């Protein structure tokens, strides 16, 4: 019931604005006349009666403005009025407007374009799903794939990977024993689904790789954090290193790539020198270097992601600063140019709030124009950049929406200070200055 009344008032205030205003005008004037009559009856002269009535009323326009501010939905109406007024004013000073809009457009456009670049280069490595499965030259994207690791020793327990099913491959799986593998949970889920992965056969490339024999799955390991921190774990296959045939491509890979040794200690021990000595005694011709704790390995891995975020943050910060400084400067100047006009408005009954809103309206119109031009600029820059930067998507809708909304908020914040300054102008002082 209450809500219904309010909605009706809101609709009336918005759509029958003229009628509501006429009503108010008539009410205040009839009030004034009744006051005058009262004074006449009390024995005052005509002029004196009117004067006293006006003094008691306290300014027709002021009273009307006070009433307007009580109306439901008044702010919608006054925002529209302020924006229309701002548009008219800005059209009258095209040079000034052009510079203001250009400053904002540059800030906004640079921000959007830089964000699009950083977003596609750093935050999203390649615009394909499973980019890691793509191989140059051949389309292997639709074949099952996995990372293959040759392991020895007590791999699973050293890395703390839990054994979910079956057994882990170990040093007993020699070259002459039946070829076996362990897989991780991701692989089991992805390629075997609901089937029991144990005793399934896996062929790693067959003739292409020299791994012609089918390998039997004997165990399933829990997924571990490996190369992609925070990403979806890759499907992995663990082969006992003794069972990698010397004729296969995998053996070549084993010889040419680096071998990682993982050592797990109880407590915080300095194992580096001990390891180096032991390794040197066992294999004097090989070098063992690049010692890292697991924490370091993880940290290096997420470094590039962090770097990207820092970069984005810095760029965005700079562009935001540009927008804030530009808009603040423009509006502050506007307020100082129009001190006199604002003084007249206030003398005629404009409240401090409505003056502040008027300046905010200017700010909003400038930001809107700047956003429009800035987004066009960003699109153009994006096209330019994407012509020499691979995989950039210059028209990422949500990036633009996000940039637009946040800059709108920032811009309005930057308008608050000049608006407050305008609202604090003393009409008497401003009028006397001219």
């Amino acid at each position, binding site marked *: *019931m*209450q809500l219904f*009344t*309010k909605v009706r*008032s809101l609709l009336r205030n918005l759509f029958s604005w003229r009628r509501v205003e006429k*009503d*108010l005008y*008539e*009410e*205040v004037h*009839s*009030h004034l*006349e*009744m*006051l005058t*009559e*009262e004074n006449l009856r009390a024995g005052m002269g005509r002029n004196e009666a009117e004067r006293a009535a006006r003094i*008691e*009323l*306290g*300014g027709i326009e*002021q*009273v009307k403005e*006070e*009433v307007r*501010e*009580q*109306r*439901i939905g008044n702010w919608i109406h006054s925002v529209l009025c302020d924006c229309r007024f701002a548009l008219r004013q800005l059209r009258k000073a095209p040079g000034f407007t052009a510079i203001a809009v250009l400053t904002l457009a540059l800030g906004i456009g640079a921000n959007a374009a830089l964000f699009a670049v950083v977003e596609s280069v750093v935050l999203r490595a390649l615009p394909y799903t499973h980019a890691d499965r793509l191989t140059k030259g051949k389309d292997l994207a639709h074949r099952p794939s996995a990372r293959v690791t040759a392991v020895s020793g007590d791999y699973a327990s050293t890395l703390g990977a839990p054994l979910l099913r079956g057994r882990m491959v170990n040093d007993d799986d020699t070259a002459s024993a039946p070829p076996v593998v362990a897989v991780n949970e991701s692989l089991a889920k992805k390629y075997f689904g609901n089937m029991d992965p144990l005793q399934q056969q896996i062929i790693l490339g067959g003739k292409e790789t020299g791994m012609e024999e089918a390998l039997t799955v004997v165990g399933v390991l829990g997924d571990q954090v490996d190369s992609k921190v925070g990403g979806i774990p890759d499907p992995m296959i663990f082969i006992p290193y003794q069972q990698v045939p010397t004729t296969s491509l995998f053996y070549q890979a084993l010889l040419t790539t680096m071998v990682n040794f993982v050592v797990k200690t109880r407590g915080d021990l300095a194992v580096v020198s001990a390891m180096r000595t032991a390794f040197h005694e066992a294999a004097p011709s090989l070098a063992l270097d690049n010692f890292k704790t697991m924490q370091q390995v993880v940290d290096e891995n997420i470094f590039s992601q962090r770097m990207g975020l820092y970069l984005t943050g810095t760029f965005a910060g700079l562009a935001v600063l540009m927008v804030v400084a530009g808009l603040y400067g423009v509006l502050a100047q506007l307020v100082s140019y129009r001190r006199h006009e604002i003084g007249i408005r206030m003398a005629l009954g404009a409240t401090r709030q409505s003056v502040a809103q008027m300046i905010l309206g200017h700010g909003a119109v400038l930001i809107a124009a700047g956003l429009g031009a800035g987004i066009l600029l960003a699109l153009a820059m994006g096209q330019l950049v994407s012509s020499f930067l691979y995989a950039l998507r210059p028209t990422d809708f949500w990036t633009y929406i996000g940039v637009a909304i946040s800059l709108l908020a920032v811009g309005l914040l930057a308008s608050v200070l000049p608006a407050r300054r305008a609202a604090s102008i003393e009409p008497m002082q401003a009028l006397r200055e001219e």
Partner: protein
Amino acid sequence: LDPEPTTLLQGTLDLLILKSLVAGELHGLGISRRIKQITSGTFVVKPGSLFPALHRMEEEGWISSFWGDSENNRRAKYYRLTKPGRKQLEVETKRWGRISWAIGQALETT
């Protein structure tokens, strides 16, 4: 002797306007004069606070307005209490009772 006019406490104006309309419909000036009368001249409501309050209360649905003829055959906007307005008057009256009792208590404490 007129007592010195006092500024209205926040929220008291609504109560006084609602109360002044209990006896029947009144126009703005009538409400203002009636408040002066029932408070023995303690509260003089200026149009600058009266009209905004009337319009706000009308939008709240506590009072409704219509155009009519004044005692001197002049067109004037009249206000009358609505049903939600009467309920609101009860609420405000109770609230005011609590406030004045509490202030009285506070002032009596030594």
